[in-house]
């Protein structure tokens, strides 16, 4: 090996990348060549210097600082672009009348005036969660987007509260992925009545139902920033969470409140990051993470918009939005099903089914529909016109419903029918009967037949 060859291989040699034979050749050349030995010494010295410098910079860890900045920036950007595309369409509807626009402006002015006086009475500039709890008391209107990791479309909520902070009206958009049974739906809740528009089934349901209302309020509670902050505060008092507050000097940047649930808390490994607007002390977003394999994994987030921007009352009624050909079921105006009277649960279930088929045999579709959740007569006729019901062969025995949440029973039965000129038996195994939601003491067939 000559000097040129040796020099060519020196870096690879220093890196230990040469095969055995070449290593030996380099080494034997080095033994006899002071120039190449000096060259190797230079290389090694430089390598040491670079390695030392590399190690010095490795001590700096930017990871958390960068991620914090990204989260904060993201929340700012989301709030800035909030009035675009899809949301714009909805808000156009909300803001279309001059009166609501002015009302919204008035509310905003009132709120900012309040927060100024409020801030004025506060001596320390440091943020404390109590400030957000206090600020929340003035909230009457809010719009919430709730994102789940892995899903693009958020659940959306519009909520209006009364002076005491109790929910007065609410509107929910539930995307397809969150409602596999019913498909995408819109629910509006007002005056203890719920309107449900099942988009895929093209069904519009009006109910006065405690259960539906409770479910709805549960949903709203989950997404209520006021409750989120109060719960967090309570958890902190109990020592279940550790709270870190980071208040940037720049007043336009949100305060980041990081709540980490401790190992022995009800939600170990959970971390929520609340972004709080510095001026109003209201929460603009909450992001949820779960510790998994040493990493905080993003679970989802809730974003809060348009605090105290009055929501058009039309948003809380679906009448103008639903398609003309939708099937309407109104369990508020119409008494559906049969009253139980002195009959037992199984007896009334059988009676509902018996009267349902009796109505179909005489082609009284309106009556049959009334016994089936108040389905409109013309819809029943459209669906069942091609079948001629001849007689009931058997009804029962009554069995518990396989899906307990329905709180109903199964009434299997067999009827004799004529279809396309052919007479046959039709066995219905899955016919369900239950109490009418919001109409105590009445029973109805539910679901499809």
């Amino acid at each position, binding site marked *: 090996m000559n000097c040129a060859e040796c*020099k*060519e291989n*020196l*870096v*690879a040699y220093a*890196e230990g*990348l040469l095969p055995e034979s070449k290593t030996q050749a380099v080494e034997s050349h080095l033994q006899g060549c002071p120039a190449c030995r000096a060259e190797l010494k*230079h*290389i090694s010295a*430089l390598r040491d*210097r*670079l*390695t*030392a*410098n*590399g190690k*010095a*910079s*490795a001590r*700096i*860890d*930017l*990871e958390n*600082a*960068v*991620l914090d*900045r*990204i*989260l904060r*920036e*993201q929340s700012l*950007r989301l709030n800035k672009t909030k009035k675009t595309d899809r949301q714009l369409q909805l808000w156009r509807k909300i803001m279309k009348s001059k009166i609501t626009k002015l009302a919204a402006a008035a509310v905003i002015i009132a709120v900012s005036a309040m927060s100024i006086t409020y801030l004025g009475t506060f001596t320390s500039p440091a943020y404390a969660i109590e400030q957000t709890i206090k600020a929340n008391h003035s909230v009457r209107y809010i719009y919430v987007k709730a994102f789940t*990791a892995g899903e*693009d479309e958020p659940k959306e909520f519009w909520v209006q509260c009364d002076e005491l902070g109790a929910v007065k009206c609410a509107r929910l958009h539930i995307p397809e992925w969150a409602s596999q049974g019913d498909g995408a739906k819109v629910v509006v809740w007002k005056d203890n009545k719920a309107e449900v528009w099942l988009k895929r089934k093209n069904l519009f349901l009006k109910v006065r139902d405690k259960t539906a209302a409770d479910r709805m309020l549960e949903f709203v509670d989950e997404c209520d920033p006021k409750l989120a902050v109060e719960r967090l505060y309570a958890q902190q008092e109990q020592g279940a969470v550790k709270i870190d507050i980071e208040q940037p000097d720049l007043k336009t940047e949100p305060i980041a409140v990081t709540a980490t649930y401790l190992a022995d808390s009800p939600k170990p490994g959970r971390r929520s990051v609340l972004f709080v607007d510095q001026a109003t002390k209201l929460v603009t977003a909450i992001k949820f*993470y779960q510790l998994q394999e040493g*990493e*905080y*994994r*993003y679970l989802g987030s809730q974003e809060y918009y348009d605090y105290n921007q009055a929501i058009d009352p039309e948003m809380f009624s679906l009448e103008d939005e639903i398609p003309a050909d939708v099937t309407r079921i109104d369990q508020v105006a119409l008494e559906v099903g049969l009253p139980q009277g002195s009959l037992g649960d199984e007896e009334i279930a059988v009676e509902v089914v018996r009267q349902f088929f009796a109505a179909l045999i005489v082609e009284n579709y309106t009556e049959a529909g009334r016994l089936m959740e108040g389905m409109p007569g013309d819809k029943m006729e459209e669906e069942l016109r091609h079948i001629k019901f001849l007689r009931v062969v058997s009804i029962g025995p009554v069995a518990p419903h396989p899906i307990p949440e329905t709180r109903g029973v199964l009434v299997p039965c067999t009827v004799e029918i004529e279809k396309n000129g052919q007479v046959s038996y039709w066995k219905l195994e899955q016919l369900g009967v239950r109490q009418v939601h919001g109409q105590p003491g009445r029973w109805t067939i539910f679901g499809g037949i």
Partner: protein
Amino acid sequence: MEQTDKYYVERCRNGHADDFRFLVRRYQGPLLAHLAGRLGSRDSAEEAAQETFVRAYFAIGRLKKPQSLFSWLLGIGNRVAKERQRNLQRSRQLAESLSQRISAVELSADYALERAVTALPESYRQVVLLRYYGGCSCSQVAEKLDMPLGTVTKNLSRAYAMLRKSLQQNEDCEVRK
């Protein structure tokens, strides 16, 4: 197994912001060294590196070749550094009467080396940054920069020669002063 840059870039694009941390972890060392060489101060290099990562995160949708993430990051870093230098110059003009240069305390331990690395031609610089500041072996560098192992060692060899030369000149300057 360690995931590729491309994998994490895709994850970030699909809304998994948290996965960006892996890319930060991977490139913070080389990026910091690069920026320290340009800006001459650890503190401002750190700030510039943070800024670079944040900008990169929000622009990640526009990154055409996820496999060239590193050179893309260096490009953003260069722009951030340039902006900072401009701002610095403005404030420096004001402060000139007070102190002629940035105080020596602010400089990193081996600023001369970092500056020499930053002054290397692009292809040599990337190899050095990944090898010494990114904790990569030569074969990992080869994989990341999509070049044969032989080219990596050859580039390293040339880079060493250039580094030596510019460090030598630097020392001569210091001596003359």
